[in-house]
């Protein structure tokens, strides 16, 4: 279980900073800065720039993503923004619009 969970039905408008992992099932508007993994589940809405470790999206992210690790856009994901990561996967059925920067 993630240490920070933004449940469905919850909206956070502002900045979340954590050195642990975050699971988003609800809505986050503002900024999301994690040191560890971030998961945006199906139904989760992030309208924020996101930084973190490994990042998995099956919900919606509008904002730039910057990961120290990998980013996985899973089927059903909808991401509008630039992605910076060491590795990235975009699954069949994921929607993505933006630039990818893989810092080669």
């Amino acid at each position, binding site marked *: 279980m993630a240490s920070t969970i933004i449940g*469905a039905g919850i909206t956070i408008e502002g900045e979340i900073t954590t050195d642990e992992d975050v699971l988003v099932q609800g809505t986050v508007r503002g900024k999301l800065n994690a040191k560890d993994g971030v998961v945006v589940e199906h139904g989760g809405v992030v309208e924020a720039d996101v930084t973190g470790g490994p990042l998995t999206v099956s919900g919606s992210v509008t904002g730039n993503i910057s990961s120290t690790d990998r980013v996985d856009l899973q089927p059903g994901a909808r991401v509008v923004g630039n992605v910076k990561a060491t590795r990235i996967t975009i699954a069949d059925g994921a929607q993505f619009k933006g630039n990818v920067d893989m810092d080669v």
Partner: protein
Amino acid sequence: MATSSHDVTVIGRGARVRGRITGSATLDIQGLVDGEILVDGDLTVGETGMVASDLSGRRVVVRGAVKGNVTGEESVHLEDGAKVVGDVRAPRIAIAPGALVRGFVQTAGAGAARPRTTAAAKATTTATRPAAAHAASTASAAKPAVVPAARGSVPRGATLAGTNHANHTGAAPVAKKGPPPPIVPALKKGAKGALAKKR
């Protein structure tokens, strides 16, 4: 990582939220939140939880620290270790020994208006809310004013003529009876009556 959908929201120990949290879910705060919290679900501020703003939920439990008003639609429980600087409001409130509070606290049944024994005391309590509370001396100075009021309410009682009978008559009858009592005690009577009628 958790994939099951809880309708519980957790702000983890190491997390810091600067902004508003709203919605309908159970919310468990173990980290720091600097922003208003407004949920229709149950809300817990855990031992390591800190909230630097007003918070409101259905049933609210606080074990951590809050600097802001705490409002429970149903109840507020402040457990041992809780530290609250702010007002606490809910129909039912429990404050455990070891929970520390600085602020105004109001449960249901305790009356919306907060009439006090004497006008002086009354004035002080209202004034104390934001400021420090030092009502004691002023209140005792005004005490003698109580006596004439008691007389006004005597007629209905067969036995002891005490202020307590006024509790059952309420404000209106007292005001009509006899010579008009001085304003200050009249206020007191009405106030006590209103309190008694609530039961």
